[in-house]
């Protein structure tokens, strides 16, 4: 992974020092609440329902085991609420009610602490750190080059990429050097720190779009032109929220070295003309939609002037590209032929032991690698008893241990809120499986229904209209049978507690959105959304299947939708694994929403909802 220079390290230390200065001035009354707010936000500090929330940046998802251990330490030492605060929060949340399961059990809020939460934008969040300890936490994080720079606020946010960047078998070019170059360029940008609204960039280097490019403010796809030269297909103006928008392509081919010159033009025009009168209309997608070709013309003219009149000062030099690329050091792995042989024997031995779950794990949690002797392994953080993407201090430490033993010390936070080990030797898969299983991180459910995305929702977030976590838990409880889960196949289930869409409900095959009706929690359900992956098809927002459902209706409605799928799906030619069939998303597209709407409606229970 990327090795930071002395300059990088010092920069992060100084940022921590600057934050301590700002926090101190706020505490001393020299900064008002309103003045401090954007400053703390640009360091990752929100104020939530019961306590502050810290969002730590994990640039393009890459974490060293050393960093993971410090994240664990923050969870253990700082993510600790005062007992009275926790009790008050728990009591308040319990008033929101419980979700009944078919077997009579009920799911309510169980507030936890002492953990980190992996987010869809590959950051790590904490929910209970008091602001009085904020500067100490930032100092601790800075010791391993972690920080909260621009993880919130109306600025250029953490850069995202494909979790398989640099190791994917289908890669056109490695996006990570460009991610890092953009991380540096966007950090404390003097002109772009007070934009109309937040600004998110995602970069993909593979043939498959695994970085949800169409959904980003800027989506960059590495491509090669007819002459074999490397460049970017540039999309601008995507986003979720109230106005889900898939970005149009602004440039089919931008030479790679012009990336920053061009983005400077894109963002400068946005900074000057983006709406600031209404925060719901302030994202760049609204400007691009409203201005259309006029926006594109302005960007092109600004880009021309940056290059021709100013000499394109941010042109990426070959030397800088080479330097950054070389700093993504591959781990020193022993890949001698002897290991290749041992690997085969070991795999055969294990296969002979007829471990069905191991076989499933090899299929769903182990991903191809550009190096034939290596694999990428997904540790599943989607398991009963934990919210999607939550990792306790002990689990983060254990994952760091796995990264050291099996993956050259590197792990990656994924968009789907799991942790990926990117450098696993094939012959070590059985040993890794056993170790991960002992930790409860080897559930063979990657890509399946229970590998759902969920935001923290109304249990923590002050923006949320409804809770996400009890809904997630109810569905997880219902679908514990692996045979059933595997029979349902690959399904993207995304849950957001409000229209801000942190749980990316718009791009879920099944999307669940929390809405507020008369102070009660209701949920709108959408079908047919896509993030742009091969499985999902071109990025598109899901369609609403009817009036919203009460919290207690949601698990039954999901079950009804899946029953329709089972009835309607077409069989495909099977293989040694058994019978195969059309994926959920393909069935939804083929048969349309009507049968799903009818089944969802039939699953309502208005009388009970009224009584509740």
């Amino acid at each position: 992974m990327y090795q930071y220079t002395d300059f990088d390290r010092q920069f992060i230390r100084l940022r921590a020092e600057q934050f301590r200065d700002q926090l101190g001035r706020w505490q001393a009354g020299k900064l008002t609440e309103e003045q401090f707010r954007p400053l703390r936000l640009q360091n990752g500090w929100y104020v939530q329902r019961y306590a502050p929330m810290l969002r730590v940046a994990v640039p393009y998802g890459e974490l060293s085991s050393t960093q993971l251990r410090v994240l664990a330490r923050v969870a253990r030492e700082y993510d600790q609420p005062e007992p009275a605060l926790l009790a008050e929060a728990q009591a308040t949340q319990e008033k929101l009610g419980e979700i009944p399961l078919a077997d009579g059990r009920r799911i309510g809020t169980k507030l936890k602490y002492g953990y980190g939460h992996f987010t869809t934008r590959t950051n790590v969040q904490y929910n209970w750190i008091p602001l009085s300890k904020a500067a100490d936490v930032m100092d601790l994080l800075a010791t391993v080059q972690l920080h909260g720079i621009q993880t919130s606020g109306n600025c250029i946010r953490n850069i995202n990429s494909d979790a398989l960047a640099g190791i994917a078998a289908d890669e056109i070019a490695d996006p990570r050097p460009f991610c890092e170059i953009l991380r540096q360029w966007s950090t404390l940008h003097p002109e772009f720190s007070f934009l109309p609204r937040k600004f998110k960039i995602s970069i993909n280097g593979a043939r498959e779009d695994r970085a949800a490019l169409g959904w980003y403010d800027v989506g960059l796809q590495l491509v090669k032109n007819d002459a074999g030269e490397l460049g970017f297909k540039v999309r601008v103006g995507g986003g979720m929220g109230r106005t889900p928008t898939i970005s149009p392509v602004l440039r089919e081919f931008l030479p790679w070295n012009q990336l920053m010159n061009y983005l400077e033009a894109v963002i400068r025009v946005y900074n000057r003309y983006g709406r600031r009168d209404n925060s719901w209309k302030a994202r760049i997608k609204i400007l691009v939609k409203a201005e259309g070709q006029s926006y594109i013309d302005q960007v092109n003219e600004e880009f021309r002037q940056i290059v021709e009149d100013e000499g394109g000062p941010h042109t990426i030099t070959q030397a800088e590209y080479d330097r950054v690329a070389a700093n993504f050091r591959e781990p020193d792995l022993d890949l001698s032929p002897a290991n290749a042989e041992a690997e085969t024997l070991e795999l055969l031995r294990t296969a002979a032991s007829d471990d069905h779950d191991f076989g499933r794990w090899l299929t769903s949690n182990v991903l191809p690698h550009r190096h034939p002797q290596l694999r990428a392994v997904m540790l599943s953080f989607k398991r009963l008893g934990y919210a999607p993407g939550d990792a306790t201090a002990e689990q983060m430490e254990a994952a760091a241990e796995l990264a050291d033993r099996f993956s050259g010390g590197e792990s990656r936070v994924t968009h789907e809120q799991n942790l990926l080990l990117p450098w696993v030797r094939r012959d070590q898969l059985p040993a890794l499986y056993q170790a991960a299983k002992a930790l409860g991180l080897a559930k063979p459910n990657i890509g399946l229904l229970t590998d759902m995305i969920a935001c923290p929702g109304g249990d923590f977030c002050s923006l949320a209209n409804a809770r996400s976590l009890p809904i997630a838990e109810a569905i997880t409880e219902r679908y514990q049978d692996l045979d059933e889960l595997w029979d349902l196949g690959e399904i993207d289930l995304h849950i957001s507690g409000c229209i801000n869409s942190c749980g990316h409900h718009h791009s879920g095959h099944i999307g669940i959105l929390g809405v507020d009706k008369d102070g009660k929690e209701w949920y709108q359900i959408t079908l047919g959304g896509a993030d742009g992956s091969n499985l999902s098809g071109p990025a598109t927002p899901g369609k609403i299947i009817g009036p919203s459902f009460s919290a207690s209706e949601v698990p039954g409605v999901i079950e009804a939708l899946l029953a329709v799928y089972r009835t309607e799906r077409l069989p495909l030619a099977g293989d040694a694994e058994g019978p195969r069939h059309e994926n959920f998303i393909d069935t939804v597209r083929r048969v349309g929403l009507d049968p799903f709407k009818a089944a969802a409606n039939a699953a309502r229970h208005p009388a009970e909802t009224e009584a509740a």
Partner: protein
Amino acid sequence: MPRATLLKPKPPEASHTMKIIAAHEHHTDVAGQKLIELPNDTNPFELDLAGVDRIDLQFPKFTDGRAFSQARLLRGRLKFAGELRATGDVLIDQLVQMARCGFDVAVLREGVDMADAQRQFDRFKAFYQGDVTHPLPHFREAA
């Protein structure tokens, strides 16, 4: 607050300087000076800059960052050589980025602790991106 404080960065390699004046010392009718008070939604390319000594750029709220781009264009593209003054709702935490965008004077509200402001200038020795005072990014300067 002193009459006009010149904030000087300690390290010799940084050249982001800025003159800070208090609100009561900010006047828009200075004899012999031609100045423009520029709303932040005005296109700087449409200005006649001939003979202009000073342009007052505006921050109606400190979170409204349009004037950063105006300053960057006036200084970096249009090569305006007169004074660029930041007026309105200005925080000391924004002074360094203002200097980097080409501002040379900022009007601060009364009662700001100048030691607090000076500390912000002393902190970072260099930045990643190029700016108006250092057009080349760090990687090209370091190369």
